[in-house]
């Protein structure tokens, strides 16, 4: 099978390949949760509570006797969905503001002051404050995290826009008579894809961690919804006797976030020199 050149270059570092595989496994497990696991994640079996990993319960059970593997698999759906929505939202809004700030000189200062103000808060604190105001729900968590991460994306996109705006082909497009809107859409935006893609993978990773942290602190998703964070939160008091109840969800969080980060690193390394070459 002929491997496309771009994949060969991306996976030149083994660890990036490993990260991609891990991520793929996590996503597949989450998607095929009902096929892979035999248990209902919400089905309690108090008689079997806090039992260690065995052949029938691969990761053991939690304090209500629910199969941990099933909960992690299904929980993955929630955690990944929240993180993905956050990434999409932050990228969409961040790109919009960054693009406008970078391209239109007069809007640059006002937009960036707002961005600076928002970035002066530590992420988690801001997220906590927002969820506390809005109330715990999946939607509000996504909203809060989008608000937290949008400024980061805006800053990066603005920086890249400032560069791309001055490139010769943009001037050439103006010389042809192309309208400003079309220049933004057709000429500038596609050439921002590299930094945007890199940011997307990092935001995805941060969001996994952030959601876990928020849920752990009780200001995230309501505890009924099984995300990895709520699992750790709900089971933490039993950790002393039954380490696996926090170990496995925690491991899932770390594995996913780390894989995303490494993959993001790999994508960034791949795109940077190519960016210079193709430009």
């Amino acid at each position, binding site marked *: 099978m002929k491997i496309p*050149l771009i994949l*060969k*270059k991306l996976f*030149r570092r083994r660890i990036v390949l490993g990260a991609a595989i891990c991520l793929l496994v996590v996503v597949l497990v989450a998607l095929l949760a009902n096929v892979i696991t035999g248990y209902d994640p919400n089905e309690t079996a108090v008689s079997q509570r806090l039992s260690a990993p065995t052949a029938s319960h691969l990761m053991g059970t939690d304090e209500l006797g629910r199969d941990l593997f099933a909960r992690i698999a299904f929980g993955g759906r929630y955690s990944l969905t929240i993180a993905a929505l956050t990434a999409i939202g932050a990228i969409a809004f961040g790109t919009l503001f960054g693009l406008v700030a970078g391209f239109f000189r007069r809007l640059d200062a006002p937009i960036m002051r707002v961005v600076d103000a928002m970035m002066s808060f530590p992420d988690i604190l801001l997220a906590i404050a927002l969820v506390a105001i809005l109330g715990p729900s999946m939607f509000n968590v996504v909203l809060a995290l989008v608000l937290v991460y949008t400024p980061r994306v805006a800053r990066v996109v603005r920086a890249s826009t400032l560069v791309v705006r001055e490139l010769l082909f943009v001037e050439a497009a103006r010389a042809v008579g192309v309208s400003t809107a079309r220049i933004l859409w057709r000429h500038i935006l596609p050439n921002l894809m590299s930094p945007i893609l890199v940011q997307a993978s990092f935001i995805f990773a941060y969001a996994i961690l952030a959601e876990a942290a928020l849920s752990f602190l009780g200001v995230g998703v309501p505890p009924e919804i099984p995300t990895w964070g709520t699992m750790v939160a709900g089971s933490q008091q039993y950790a002393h006797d039954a380490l696996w109840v926090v170990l496995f969800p925690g491991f899932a969080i770390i594995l996913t976030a780390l894989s995303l980060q490494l993959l993001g690193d790999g994508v960034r390394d791949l795109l940077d020199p190519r960016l210079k070459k193709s430009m």
Partner: protein
Amino acid sequence: MKPSLTSPDPLRLDVRNLSTFFDTDEGLIRSVADVSFSIRPGKTTALVGESGSGKSVTSLSLMRLLSRTDSTQVSGQALFTNRAGETLNLLALPEPAMRRIRGNEIAMIFQEPMTSLNPVFTVGEQIAESVRLHMGLDRAAALAHALRMLELVEIPAAAQRLHEYPHQLSGGMRQRVMIALAMACNPTLLIADEPTTALDVTIQAQILELMRRLQRETGMSILFITHNLGVVAHHADDVAVMYAGRIVEAAPVRALFASPQHPYTQGLLACLPAQQRKRELANGETRGKRRLYAIRGQVSSPLAPPPGCAFEPRCDHALAACKEAMPALESAGPQRVARCILVSEAAPLVTETA
């Protein structure tokens, strides 16, 4: 140019079968293949070529400045005769020995003076650094020497410039600083990689004049890498023309311009507007805007070289035999070589102008 049998002086640099290959994701790139040329003491040899010819990689290979990774393969010999008269193979020296030569016996100047100078050190400090390293002088003596170097390259107000940073100087001045840096330890060989390409024409003339004067005064040899044939015509003694990583022709400068042997050299000279003008004058024509002679096509990708002669796809004189094998570099007259099956000592190739 092989040394003539009657000449007793050793060559300053004798490059034999230099090859540099890069093993990349896309395949093996033969940047420099089987390159041989020589530089006489006190003379200037020009290495001429367009993009992809391998001329810059040649100089970096000689100076051993390519990154030492598994994917870079350098082979061949580069016999350098130093001040003391010893002949060393640059490609076989251990790194510490090579470091003693760089900046000391062999100096190099580059195309972009802005990026070749360290922006956070003053000009004087940078020159002094080289001097202290190779000549073992203390700080004060090194700075004094640096000042002398700046004066040598005719920088006005040298004492003031000594304490200035590169960004405070103009492009022409920075190139003079580069030359001062290169001359600081009185090198026997100066490698100049497109030193005037980024400069304005009037500044270029000054810099070339300066280099010529320094050569006269110190007797150093110069390897001048360029694509500008005008500069070659007036500032080189010997010329080696490169195409697709190989030397295709080498000759003394007057002979090369008077009767170029290789079709590529002929094409290169013929397509210059100045040559067009010369032809018109020679034919007694007034300025008619006759089309310029242009070599058709472009250089092949290094990943997909033609099976035989690299220039064959673009050559007006190509024969079927040219596709079969890469021609060898053979004698084409006194002190001349050419890589073309149509060229021989007895019957040099003559082109009809387009």
